[in-house]
């Protein structure tokens, strides 16, 4: 920092000198900068097709401008509104039901005294994170299979009817969120465990001298100490409510469950990639990206306000 400040006091000639001095560092940066320009920024120019009547033959430049026509079409479409609503619903339920699980898990793991048992539990609960979505979906399909899946066998044994869960819209969110918890809750607890490790042990020692129970130590020391971490991660999630796991949803949903399963990004995938209506799908993408950016900025403001530490 001080070197940069010093040099900024000097005149323009020192800028060239600095660049000449550090040319190797610029050379190291160049490939990555080119990569970001080609694969991240160049597509941003392609966002213009959201405002054009795209034709493959005329190309991106040659296609005529149509202003906000595609956006009007989208907002008149029930399917687009359904996708927005489903995105928000899945995010909301994940926020409420799935995000507390890793916190509870971290608190529980932290209470284990035996190192061996703790390591074993951690190894087991982190494992599903490394299983791919395709395999998770494959296992979910096998478990829920109407003919011979384990869940339906159990239901039948209890005298209940067999259900083809994956074709029932009312079950989709439960299946999606439940299997997401299975896959990620363990791994997500790592960050909370790291925060717990940072708590000053003297707090626990003095609480013990005062005769506090373990439950009291959790609720009065551990939980308040990791509250900033919880708050920041909550705000990050809030900023990302439009980002739902479409790669996973695509594996699990079917036309019969679109009513609850079709989210903005799966809608974009179907209309754009599968249906080749690039302009309409790009318009939906523009809407998604702009709203997402606003949400992230608001979330960061909130985070600064509450915890005095920005997310970025």
């Amino acid at each position, binding site marked *: 920092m001080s070197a940069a400040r010093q040099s900024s006091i000097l005149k323009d000639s020192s800028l060239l000198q600095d660049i000449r001095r550090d040319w190797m560092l610029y050379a190291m940066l160049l490939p990555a900068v080119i990569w970001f320009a080609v*694969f991240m920024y160049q597509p941003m120019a392609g966002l213009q097709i959201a405002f054009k009547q795209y034709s493959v033959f005329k190309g991106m430049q040659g296609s005529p401008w149509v202003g906000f026509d595609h956006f009007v079409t989208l907002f008149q479409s029930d399917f687009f509104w359904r996708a927005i609503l489903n995105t928000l619903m899945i995010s909301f339920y994940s926020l409420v039901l799935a995000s507390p699980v890793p916190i509870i898990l971290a608190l529980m793991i932290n209470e284990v005294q035996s190192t061996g048992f703790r390591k074993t539990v951690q190894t087991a609960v982190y494992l599903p994170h490394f299983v791919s979505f395709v395999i998770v979906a494959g296992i979910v399909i096998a*478990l829920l299979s109407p003919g011979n899946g384990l869940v339906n066998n159990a239901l039948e044994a209890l005298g209940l009817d067999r259900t083809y869960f994956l074709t029932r819209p009312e079950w989709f969110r439960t299946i999606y969120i439940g299997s997401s918890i299975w896959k990620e809750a363990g791994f997500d607890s790592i960050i909370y465990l790291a925060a717990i490790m940072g708590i000053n042990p003297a707090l626990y020692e003095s609480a013990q001298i005062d005769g506090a129970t373990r439950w009291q130590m959790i609720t009065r020391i551990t939980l308040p100490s990791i509250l900033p971490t919880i708050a920041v991660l909550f705000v990050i999630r809030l900023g990302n409510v439009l980002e739902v796991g479409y790669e996973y949803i695509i594996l699990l949903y079917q036309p019969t469950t679109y009513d609850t399963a079709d989210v903005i990004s799966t809608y974009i995938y179907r209309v754009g990639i599968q249906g080749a209506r690039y302009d309409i799908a790009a318009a939906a*993408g523009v809407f998604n990206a702009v709203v997402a950016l606003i949400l992230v900025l608001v979330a960061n403001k909130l985070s600064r306000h509450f915890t005095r530490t920005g997310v970025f």
Partner: protein
Amino acid sequence: MMSRPIYSVGDRWFGRVNAILLTIFALCALYPIVYVTSLSMSSGEAGSSGQVWLWPVEWTLAAHQHVVKNSLFWISYANTFFYTVTGTLTSLALVIPAAYALSKARLRGRRVIGFFIAFTMWFHAGMIPFYLNLRDLDLLDSRWGIVIAFALNAFNVILMRNFFESVSPTFEEAARIDGANDFQILWKVYIPLAKPAIATVALLCAIARWNGYFWSMVLLKTEDKIPLQVFLKKTVIEVNITESVAGAISQQPYSLETITGAIIVLSIIPVLIVYPMIQKYFTKGVTLGGIKE
């Protein structure tokens, strides 16, 4: 760590209940994998009639033998190895030098370039323009397209930069007195120091490559280029979700269910083998990437 405290009766019960619940959670985490493994080792009859729930019923490896005879399974397996190895090496070759340069406070334009990279975490053009860009670059259905187009992301650059920033500048100063230039300092001093961080980034890339399916599915059309996860999607998801093939192979020692199980088990084995060794690096990655800038 604290010395082991002496607990009251209530606290000891708390500990027991906690241990029992955690044991249940751990078993829940493992159960689906055990179930699929047992399913894959059961007879076709037992698999399709739903008798399997914990251990293999009528033990047989017929399903596994059937899967390993499929040449497309092995081609996709080899493809996944190719994409994982070349993809991870490409990522490292791009991430390490860039992160090193960005970690130097003296670098002019450091903040601007840092923002140029970090901005892509908050705003990206989205699926369709990204896809059309690849099409314009003629990278559809291309192995190298898969390797290069997904080689970088801002998070990995920032994670690596955070590590380089935490290294004491005295290392660089000492090397500079010995007459080393920036390339030599990175190669001989910083890379050896950064081994844990490099391992973390490498494993993040490798796991993403091994497990990812979406863009390979979208971009690759030729059958002999597809990775394992796309093969899995075609054989496990698309076949099962319609259930149209069920019963068609009932006279065999395997069934659709046991075949599905066998494909899943055979594709997950490499992950299960390396997982115990790599676990600690992921823990490091979560804390290193952290919430810092």
